[in-house]
């Protein structure tokens, strides 16, 4: 009963099976219950509308002042469905459609949804005065708990109201609109980094709009190529929709809208081609088409996906690291050599640091002999890491830290060396938040060539937005799908 009372009857148009299956005998007691709960007037409106539906007549109320002509044939006039009982003030507003008439309505509840929306439309034909703004708000509020959904479905009208001076507060939109401020730290290459994402979102009839305000602060003599950068962001990010798995015709595009705003996150804009981070972008960045969308990913709260330990990689990406080179025999040989180097014994007569130095030199020889660059992984090094884990049940990067555990002489060289070598056996994804520029020749066999893997933005990167849609519509199962 509560659900029916909250939901206008004309919102149940698609639910005829339920209505048709209702036993007639049970009608009277349930009607009495309804009358008791919500009153006679609401129930009479409900019944009238249901009758209209069952007879197939339109829900739009014919003008009361109109006269039905029968052609004077003498035949009895056709039976017309009962007209819903409306208070005279509402009826007059629906007929006259003037601000004066609409302002005079005390209760918009008996009007159907289309009628109410048409009254709002009529009010917003011109600028709203104080009384008009209050009336428009009352009409919207007459939708009760359905207001957020109705406003989302009619977002253009909602915006028009505010453009005309209605001053409708966002709070009326419930979870259909919101602000997110995301802060956390991530560990990359053994260092802690701060991630800070800020955005506003709004669920409209066909999309979830994600507004990301950015406060560009150019250095002296520099101007930010805003259009170019926002073009990179839109062309990279705007390919997904939140889609209801239970009914795939229900979907909302995930629409990222970067905006230049003094209230947004500050991004220093600098001349030349330097290393960008979340807080500084370079106008001459040769890889800007990837760099700018990557940094934008941080501004919506995403983590980096490079130089991660196995456990972090799985946590961040939700998947196992990419496959290695496939050369298992070669990788097993290198894995064994790495293990032998790391577990060189420590003589009783030598200092621990001396043994560590010897292990470091042995590991360096293995890497050099196999042309494995330090600091980041390749298909070959990933294969080595996998073979090592299979053979010794340890993560290779962990064994490096365990066995090379003391500075053999100089803090700088020790840390530098260890980070570089651990980086070889950490994991980097080829998505936008990892290293999409990594295009080795011959191609990396671990990089898939079909489906989502081809696209730099992965479903996990936009899942938070399909979740926001899910939280708003409160039905079905909404997932991100790359569909445009």
């Amino acid at each position, binding site marked *: 009963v509560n659900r029916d009372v909250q939901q206008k009857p004309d919102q149940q148009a698609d639910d005829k099976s339920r209505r048709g299956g209702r036993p007639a005998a049970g009608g009277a007691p349930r009607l009495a219950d309804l009358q008791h709960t919500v009153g006679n007037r609401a129930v009479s409106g409900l019944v009238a509308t249901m009758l209209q539906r069952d007879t197939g007549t339109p829900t739009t109320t014919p003008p009361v002042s109109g006269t039905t002509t029968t052609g004077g044939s003498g035949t009895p006039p056709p039976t017309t469905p009962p007209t819903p009982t409306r208070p005279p003030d509402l009826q007059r507003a629906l007929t006259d459609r003037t601000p004066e008439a609409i302002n005079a309505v005390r209760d918009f509840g008996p009007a159907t949804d289309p009628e109410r929306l048409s009254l709002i439309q009529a009010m917003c034909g011109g600028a709203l005065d104080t009384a008009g703004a209050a009336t428009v708000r009352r009409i919207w509020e007459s939708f009760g708990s359905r207001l957020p959904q109705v406003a989302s479905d009619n977002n253009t009208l909602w915006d028009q109201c505010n453009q005309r001076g209605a001053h409708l507060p966002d709070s009326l939109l419930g979870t259909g609109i919101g602000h997110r401020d995301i802060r956390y730290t991530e560990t990359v290459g053994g260092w802690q980094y*701060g991630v800070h994402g800020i955005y506003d979102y709004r669920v409209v009839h066909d999309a979830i709009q994600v507004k990301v305000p950015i406060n560009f602060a150019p250095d002296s003599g520099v101007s930010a190529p805003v259009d170019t950068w926002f073009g990179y962001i839109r062309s990279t990010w705007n390919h997904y929709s939140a889609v209801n798995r239970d009914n795939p015709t229900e979907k909302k595009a995930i629409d990222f809208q970067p905006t230049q705003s003094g209230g947004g996150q500050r991004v220093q804009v600098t001349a*030349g081609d330097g290393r960008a981070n979340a807080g500084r972008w370079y106008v001459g960045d040769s890889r800007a088409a990837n760099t700018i969308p990557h940094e934008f990913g941080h501004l919506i709260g995403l983590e980096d996906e490079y130089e991660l330990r196995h456990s972090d990689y799985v946590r961040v990406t939700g998947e196992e690291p990419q496959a290695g080179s496939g050369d298992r025999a070669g990788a097993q040989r290198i894995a064994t050599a790495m293990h032998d180097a790391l577990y060189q014994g420590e003589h009783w007569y030598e200092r621990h640091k001396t043994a560590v130095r010897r292990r470091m030199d042995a590991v360096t020889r293995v890497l050099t002999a196999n042309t494995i660059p330090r600091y*980041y992984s390749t298909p070959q090094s990933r294969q080595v890491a996998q073979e090592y884990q299979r053979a010794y049940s340890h993560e290779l990067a962990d064994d490096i830290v365990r066995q090379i555990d003391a500075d053999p002489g100089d803090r700088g060289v020790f840390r530098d060396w260890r980070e570089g070598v651990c980086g070889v056996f950490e994991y980097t994804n080829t998505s936008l938040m990892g290293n999409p520029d990594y295009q080795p020749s011959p191609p990396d066999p671990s990089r898939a060539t079909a489906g989502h893997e081809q696209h730099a933005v992965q479903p996990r990167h936009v899942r938070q937005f399909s979740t926001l849609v899910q939280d708003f519509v409160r039905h079905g199962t909404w997932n991100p799908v790359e569909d445009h």
Partner: protein
Amino acid sequence: LSFLRRRGSRGPGPLVSYRRHGGRPPPDRELLEVSDDGSFSMWRTIARAFDPPAPIGRFAGTLDPGALERLQAAAGDAARAGDLTEELPAGSAVEETAVGKRTATLPHTASPNGPWGELLGQVRPLLVELTGQPRAAVGLRLGEGLQLVHLGAEPLRLGLGQVEVRAILWEGYEQRGTWRWAGALSPDPVDAGPGWMLEVPFEHGLEGAGELVAYVDLMADDGDGWLTCSLQTPRATP
């Protein structure tokens, strides 16, 4: 790195140790150590880490007396100021600058006030200026074609089995055209020594108004193993 290892616990230690590393792959690894007598050792990995882009490899020599004097003054002030740290924004390289027992650990984009800011204002330009004293380095020469050119008196081992070459035609900060080639220039490591030069594929076909900039990624051995290094030609308009 031999120049760092030579610094044992018995010695007085360098005047300034600077180390910038990390970031999205290929990561930075830019090292500079200046001694009290003005001698320096430096390794550069990513040309664009500082502006303008410079050759990569090993560099060594001596600071001019004026620069050394200014550096000593700034280092003294920083040492008295104590340690300094700042939060690292996502994507940053980490910049560690040590003076005596004091260290500043900052994102590479930091602009701290006070003594550490003064010191970094002295040190960062050195990472470009001191590439004028190459020991075993390689640079890019863009003329009729594009060449890798050895710099300095000592050999530098290069890994050319997987090289990426790019060209971008810039007009202001708009990329009017791009071109990319990837492949092997040599299946085996090359010991590039004095006089060594290698022509790089550069059939970009980019035409029209604008400024052509070349980019080359390759591997170099810094003595502790292979590093992915990035070279690029400087722009006339920064």
